[in-house]
């Protein structure tokens, strides 16, 4: 069964450093998302991406964050200058069609630890 893959599974970085989290969505999916979850608690929306541009973003997704689909398969989240509070599990998700209510397929996440 096709799945969303995320790399790396764990990322440790120093505060102020840049990190890039990588995702390979399911190949025929059109909508891509990043979510994050702090300490196994609530799942927070960061950004949605469609047709090579951001569809929506949350207030968390400030100028330190950016997303890119550099080729036909990868979808990346970049945090330019990490802060301690960016420590979280980051999930990539994708959906097949640009229809409201399409179910999301999630990757297994990247645990980001900012020291």
């Amino acid at each position, binding site marked *: 069964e096709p799945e969303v893959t995320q790399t790396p599974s764990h990322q440790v970085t120093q505060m102020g450093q840049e990190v890039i989290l990588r995702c390979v969505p399911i190949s025929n999916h059109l909508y891509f998302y990043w979510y994050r979850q702090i300490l196994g608690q609530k799942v927070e*929306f960061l950004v949605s991406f469609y047709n090579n541009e951001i569809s929506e973003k949350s207030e968390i997704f400030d100028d330190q964050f950016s997303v890119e689909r550099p080729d036909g398969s990868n979808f990346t989240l970049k945090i330019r200058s990490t802060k301690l509070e960016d420590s979280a599990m980051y999930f990539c998700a994708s959906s097949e069609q640009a229809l409201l209510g399409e*179910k*999301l397929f999630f990757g297994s996440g990247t645990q980001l630890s900012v020291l």
Partner: protein
Amino acid sequence: SQQGEEDPQALSIQEGENATMNCSYKTSINNLQWYRQNSGRGLVHLILIRSNEREKHSGRLRVTLDTSKKSSSLLITASRAADTASYFCARTSGTYKYIFGTGTRLKVLA
């Protein structure tokens, strides 16, 4: 806050019992979905109910939706130890942003 809220936050039951989790939200919705998360893993879609539906079944899962009360419930019948996980509701309301609730941590004791 637009976020949904699950209730209870944590639930512990014996194997074979039914588990009921509730989700409340504040604004109108197009549909509501339930997801499951095993510890440290990604979320897995369980079931979707549209705003014009009142009840839906899938195997041992039963979901209800009451748009007048802005609430939904997820019932897992005849629970198993393997059902131990966190359960989240997610809703969309006219955008492609899925808003997740805070989750219910279910523990099924063998």
